[in-house]
């Protein structure tokens, strides 16, 4: 379209505002990017679509990493499941697999996060936010009857990765070559925890870096279908980072890990193809799509230009996405179904490889069977009733979304440059820079909501007196918790103690010897029925007890 014609239209638009002003003084995205009334070909004047977009499966992968995307295969429906005991997990997980879920996303109990066995903590805390896991035995019960080589397994596991070590032991026991296991060590990125939520920080940071590096080395060598690293922006965005910050901090974290593994002697093209990412999805639908598209383009460029990757597989940004929990409300909880559906749609329009959809009762308690059923059906409906999965990158070429993708990218590079100048992500996290940036964003967002400048339906607008009745709450079965505690106690009594002692001694030796692979020693300990709590305690003795940075 001619520029003159667009200019004339804009002139008319401005004149019309005198009579009918706009709803707001300024329109901005969640990250503060100003939004114009309309985008036209003028906004993409110098846009080289061949260079900036390419085609699906072609550099820079803006339009998607696979040739056929969802026309070939729908994203992996990977909803978090974690509750009570391994027995309950097994029942819920099988129900989810029957109703459409095709990727497991296993959440352990908070006691596991902190590295304590069930029989060593106050039992009122057990099984409330995830499944109790202390030993290989628990993992066997949790996965009983689930074919390990047929379904993609994401473990929300943290250094020293005892859940993944257990899967390896179980596969070997069942005669399945571990090279066939596919899945992700979903929470291996300890930097994101250190910055955002603290919870699984068990050791001082250098200890976490050591075990992660060894885990990546092990999986690179033995598990070609496994993703040992998932670089997580989700925690940061849930902690309050805006989408641009979350994108930049995630890619900076990725850069740090690539640097680290290269220094550890690995070839970039050996390990980078097994990198994966994990992003949050806010309610800003277009900005999230732009974030995902920009993420692919930026990572491809980082891998090719910064690290000189030759293997095209090294340049692919594969990602899991999770709908926002912090944006759900306790008020009128059924409204959360709508929110989570729209967040899910963003991830699909953004080309996600796997998606978790929040259950509507998450601001109240862990999901009930009913709410989790709605969440999986949400994905089934979007996948098979709406047609959005029938075309690749439907937003590609949109004047607005392409402009926004460019702007998100530009602002994210600025942040990455700032972090580079601070010595990289590890240093920026240790110094507290990233934490302060996130806290500022989070407080700013709170002020917007409190001040009524940002609508949260049912909370600060359209409030109602007659709240719907709260949906059913899942109650913890105390008997199952007792059974868990007794199982762990009895495991310690009945195991071959000499074997367990030797494995623990060897674990300590491996931790002290940088020449050995520590993750191998963890696998051996798991096989000798050493419990998770015992493994973490041994490693805390060597690496120190990790504490958060209070900024």
């Amino acid at each position, binding site marked *: 379209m001619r520029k003159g014609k667009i200019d004339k239209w804009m002139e008319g638009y401005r004149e019309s505002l005198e009579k009918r002003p706009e709803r707001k003084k300024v329109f901005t995205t969640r990250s503060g990017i100003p939004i114009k009334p309309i985008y036209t070909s003028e906004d993409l004047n110098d846009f080289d679509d061949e260079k900036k977009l390419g085609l699906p499966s072609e550099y820079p992968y803006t339009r998607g990493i696979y040739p056929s995307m969802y026309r070939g295969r729908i994203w992996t429906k990977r909803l978090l499941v974690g509750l009570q005991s391994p027995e309950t997990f097994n029942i819920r997980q099988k129900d989810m697999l029957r109703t459409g879920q095709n990727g497991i996303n296993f959440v352990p109990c*908070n*006691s596991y*996060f*902190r590295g304590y066995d069930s029989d060593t903590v*106050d039992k*009122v*805390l057990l099984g*409330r*936010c995830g499944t109790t896991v202390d030993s290989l035995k628990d993992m066997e019960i949790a996965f009983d009857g689930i074919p390990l080589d047929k379904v993609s397994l994401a473990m929300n596991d943290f250094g020293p990765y005892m859940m993944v070590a257990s899967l390896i032991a179980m596969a070997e026991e069942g005669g399945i070559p571990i090279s066939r296991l596919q899945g992700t060590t979903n929470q291996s990125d300890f930097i994101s*925890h250190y910055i955002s*939520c*603290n*919870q*699984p*920080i068990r050791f001082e940071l250098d200890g976490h870096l050591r075990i992660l590096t060894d885990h990546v080395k092990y999986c690179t060598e033995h598990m070609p279908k496994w993703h040992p690293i998932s670089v997580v922006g989700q925690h940061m965005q*849930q*902690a*309050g980072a805006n989408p641009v910050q979350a994108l930049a901090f995630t890619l900076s974290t990725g850069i740090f890990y690539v640097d680290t593994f290269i220094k550890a002697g690995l070839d970039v093209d050996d390990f980078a193809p097994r990198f994966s990412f994990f992003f949050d999805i806010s309610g800003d639908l277009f900005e999230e799509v732009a974030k995902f598209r920009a993420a692919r383009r930026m990572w491809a460029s980082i891998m090719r230009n910064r690290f000189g990757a030759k293997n095209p597989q090294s340049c692919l940004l594969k990602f899991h996405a999770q709908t926002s929990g*912090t944006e759900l*409300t*306790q*008020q009128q909880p059924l409204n959360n179904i709508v929110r989570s559906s729209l967040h899910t749609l963003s991830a699909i329009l953004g080309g996600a490889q796997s998606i978790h959809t929040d259950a509507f009762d998450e*601001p*109240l*308690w862990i999901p009930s069977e009913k709410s989790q059923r709605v969440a999986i059906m949400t994905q089934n409906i979007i996948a098979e009733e709406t047609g959005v999965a029938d075309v690749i990158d439907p937003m590609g070429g949109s004047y607005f979304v392409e402009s926004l993708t460019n702007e998100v990218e530009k602002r994210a590079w600025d942040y990455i440059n700032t972090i580079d100048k601070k010595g990289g992500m590890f240093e920026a996290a240790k110094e507290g820079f990233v934490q302060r940036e996130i*806290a500022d964003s*989070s*407080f700013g967002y*709170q*002020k917007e909501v*409190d001040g009524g400048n940002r609508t*949260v339906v049912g*909370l600060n607008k359209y409030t109602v007196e007659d709240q719907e009745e*709260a949906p059913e*709450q899942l109650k913890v079965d105390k008997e199952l918790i007792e059974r868990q505690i007794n199982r762990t106690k009895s495991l310690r009594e009945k195991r071959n103690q000499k074997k367990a002692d030797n494995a623990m001694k060897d674990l300590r030796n491996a931790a002290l010897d940088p020449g050995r692979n520590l993750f191998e020693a963890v696998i051996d300990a798991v096989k000798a029925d050493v419990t998770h709590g015992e493994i973490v305690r041994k490693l805390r003795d060597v690496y120190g007890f990790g*504490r*958060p940075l*209070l900024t």
Partner: protein
Amino acid sequence: MQNIRVLLTKIGFDGHDRGVKIVASALRDAGMEVIYTGPWQTAEEVTEIALQEDVDVIGISTLGYDHVLIPGLMKLCKEKNITDTLMIVGGIIPPDEVPALKAAGVAEIFPPGTRMDSIVEFVRKNLKREV
């Protein structure tokens, strides 16, 4: 006039601190002195800090079911004679578990979505001793 002194803390296993950091900023903006302990504190540690710092308010943030430890903490407070301190809780508490916390002596519970000024106002109006 002295400033109101507030101890913010997290007990149990949960580490998520977005909420408690926001509350800390809001209370500081309102002129209060805030001490934030970080996560994973025991009841013993919380009461020790409360006594050492002579705080007027103890605020507990809980998002991961750690609120089940609060009655124990309240009991310890009584044993240690921390009785003129205002106890408040913020975070995710299933609605039918609220009465037990109130019965244990928690003055108010602020769920997700609470306005920051309502916490400031509540603290100012409900202090249990002169500041």
